[in-house]
Each structure stands twice: as C-alpha cells, then as structure tokens.
C-alpha cells in the first residue's frame, strides 16, 4: 500500500473511510503515515467547536413572539397568497380561475360520460367529483415537480413512469381548457405538458444530473408555483363544496 494522502487521513479521522481496516493496518506498519496521521488528529482535535453565546431559557419563546405577528393563520395565508398573486397578475389569473371552474365542469362531464351509472347522480353531487379529479391531477403533478426539484440521486424510473401516467390526463385537461376559451389555464397546462413530455421521453437510464438539467431548462420552479396556486384554489373550492356553500354552482350546471 502506498503512503496515505492527507485526504485519506482526514477521511479516516472522521470515520468515513471506505477502507478503514486497511488504513488502520497501514498506520501500524508505516511510521511516516503514522506521524502524518498523528499530526492531522492533533490539529483537528485542537480545533475546538466555536463557543456559542448562551441563550436564556426563554429564548425560544422570545423568537416565537418576535415572529408571531408576521405569520398569518394558515387558511388566511392562502388567501393572502391569492391576493398577492392577483395583484401581480390580476388579469391572467382571474381568467385562470374562471377557466379552472369551467375546465372542472367540462372534465366532470367527460368523466361522467364514461360512467353511465353516475348520470343518475344529482346535479348537486357533481362538482366535488369533478374537482376531486382535477385536484388529484394537480396534486400528482405537484409531487412530481417536487420530486424533480429535490432529486435524491436514486433511480429516475419512478419519476419517468409518473410523467407518462400524467401525460394523457394533462392533454385532456389542456384541450378542454383550450376548447372552452381559457388561454391562461391552457397555457399553464401546456407548460406542464412540455415538462411531462420531456421527462417521459428521457431514456430509461437517464441520470439524476440530466433531470436536474431539465429542471433548470424548463423552469420547473415557476411551474411548481403555478400548480400549487391552482391546486390550492381547487382545494378551497372543494372545501366550500363540503360546507354546502356552493349549491348554486350545482344549479348552474
């Protein structure tokens, strides 16, 4: 075995050497490496942790009190986000919101047409189903984008498979949005579709690095934000449905 490098000695000191036993053996045999290791160990052992200023017992409570008024109750936070979003892109997203409802209605009808037995349902029971279908699609899309963003370096196959699964549904929703004259919503779904197509068509052995590159190229961060906003609105609408506040929508259908 050759003499150990400084890097190997440092790695060994921190207990992360893949050849720990061999290095231990070598250190017993080689005086030069043994002395070098003793020097590394001495230097690092002498490097004491930075002394952190003491915090009082109530420090955590003080931190909470200092930020308490800066964070809204969670439901209000979503409304705040919506308000902020509307201010910045008011026209586009007002249109998108109208489009979302329209697409949800359209998607629900499509869904029900494929299931004759569901036609006996009353009008008042349709919206939750429609919204659930769309909400599920947006939720799965969001999870895929999050997985892409925080890629763990594992196999890319699950991400690719999920993109393939989502692609067909997304096309349906995009076409629905286009046909019902809702360009803002259609544009968001079109961008999502481009990402899904790219991921779905990656080779089976695509590296995590390649997915990271795709993430940058396609600006998936921006898309993720849009999907989250749309999804939160669908969820809000579902909650309203559950409280019975949206009966009038059922009448409109």
């Amino acid at each position, binding site marked *: 075995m050759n003499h150990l490098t400084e890097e190997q000695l440092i*790695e060994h000191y921190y207990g*992360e050497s893949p050849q720990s036993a061999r290095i231990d053996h070598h250190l017993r045999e080689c005086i030069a490496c043994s002395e070098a290791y003793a020097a590394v160990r001495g230097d690092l052992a002498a*490097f004491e942790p930075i002394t952190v*200023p003491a915090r009082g017992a109530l420090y955590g409570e003080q931190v909470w009190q200092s930020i308490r008024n800066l*964070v809204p109750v969670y439901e209000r936070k979503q409304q705040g986000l919506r308000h902020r979003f509307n201010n910045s892109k008011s026209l586009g997203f007002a249109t998108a919101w109208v489009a979302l409802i329209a697409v949800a209605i359209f998607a629900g009808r499509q869904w029900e047409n494929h299931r004759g037995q569901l036609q006996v349902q009353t009008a008042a029971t349709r919206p939750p189903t429609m919204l659930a279908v769309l909400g599920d699609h947006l939720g799965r899309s969001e999870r895929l984008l999050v997985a892409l963003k925080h890629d763990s370096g594992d196999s890319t196959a699950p991400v690719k498979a999920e993109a393939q699964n989502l692609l067909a549904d997304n096309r349906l929703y995009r076409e629905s949005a286009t046909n019902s004259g809702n360009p803002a919503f259609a544009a968001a779904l079109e961008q999502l579709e481009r990402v899904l197509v790219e991921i779905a068509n990656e080779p089976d052995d695509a590296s995590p690095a390649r997915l990271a590159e795709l993430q940058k190229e396609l600006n998936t961060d921006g898309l993720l934000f849009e999907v989250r906003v749309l999804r939160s609105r669908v969820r809000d609408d579902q909650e309203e449905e559950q409280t019975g506040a949206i009966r009038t929508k059922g009448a409109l259908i």
Partner: protein
Amino acid sequence: MEENNDQSIVRAVLSGDKEAYGVLVVRHSFAIFRVAFRITGHKADAEDVVQETFIRGYQKLESFESRSKFSTWIYRIAVNYALNLRNKRKPEVAYQIGEDADATQHQVQIADTAANPERLLLSQEIDVLQARAMENLTATERTAFVLRHMEACTTEEIAATLHIAPNAAKQAVFRAVQKLRRDLAPLKVNA
C-alpha cells in the same frame, strides 16, 4: 417520539392552529441558533437566521413531507439561509489572511494581552487564530466544516443540506481542513 409529535403539530398548524407553531419554534430555536452562529460567526446574524428560518419554515410548511424529520427539514432551511447571509456579508469582512500569510504576520495582529496570565494569553491567541482561520474559508467550506467537525454530520447529510453532490461535500471539508491546518501551522511553531 418528539418527531412524531412535531409532525402532529405541523398538521395542526396546517389546519389553522397558528399557535401550535410556537411549540416548534421553542423546541428548535436553540439548535438553529447554534448552527447559525457557527456558520455566520455573528450573534446578530445568527438571531436573524433563527427568525427568518422559522418564518420561511411556516411559509413552506405545506411542502414539508411527513416522512422526513421536521428538525432536519428546518435545520436545512437554517443552514442554507445562514450560508447565503454569509456569502453576502463576506466582502464586508475587514480582516483577510492572505494566501502567503506567515507566522510573523499573525503574531503582530494578535491583541496585546500581556497583563493576563500566560495560559490565558495562549488560549486567547488560539481563539483569535482559529477565528481568523475560519474567516479565511469560503462560505461553503466553512459551512461544510462546521457541519462535519462541530455538528457531527455525515458527508451524505452535508451534501443533502447544501444541495451538492456527496463528493463535492467531501472535497469542501477536505479543502477547509487543509486551509485551517495551513493557517494554524504558525500556532504550533509558537506554542
């Protein structure tokens, strides 16, 4: 056990119980302050990191996945914010040890504490040199070294926290140790 409790608190917060978040803040503030201070090197900056971390954590709480630990998740937010803060502050640091700094240069710049006992003087000298050596590291090197040497994180944990490859994390620690050893070599001569 505490982690399970953290997760149930997160669910409560997401359901509209804002006050529940206070429990998480109280529980994790000390740990966040500790790592923030070690990375930034400034008390005021560390306090800023603690506040900002918990605000960001609240805003991102919906993206917290219950299969991970809340403590790890919030810790990562803190480390990244502290790292960014340090990157911004770096040009403002007045003292920089040059690449070719020698022992004489260090000795001249140590505060005169001759009135103190010899042991205290040596201890202060060590503290000053160590602090200056840490200042000489890049923000990433310093953070990687703090996480490795002082927070006992593994290479994988450092990589995940800093969003870099494990090999890059290992190299950052390695470069940090090399620089620290080089900068602290005069101390061994003096001691």
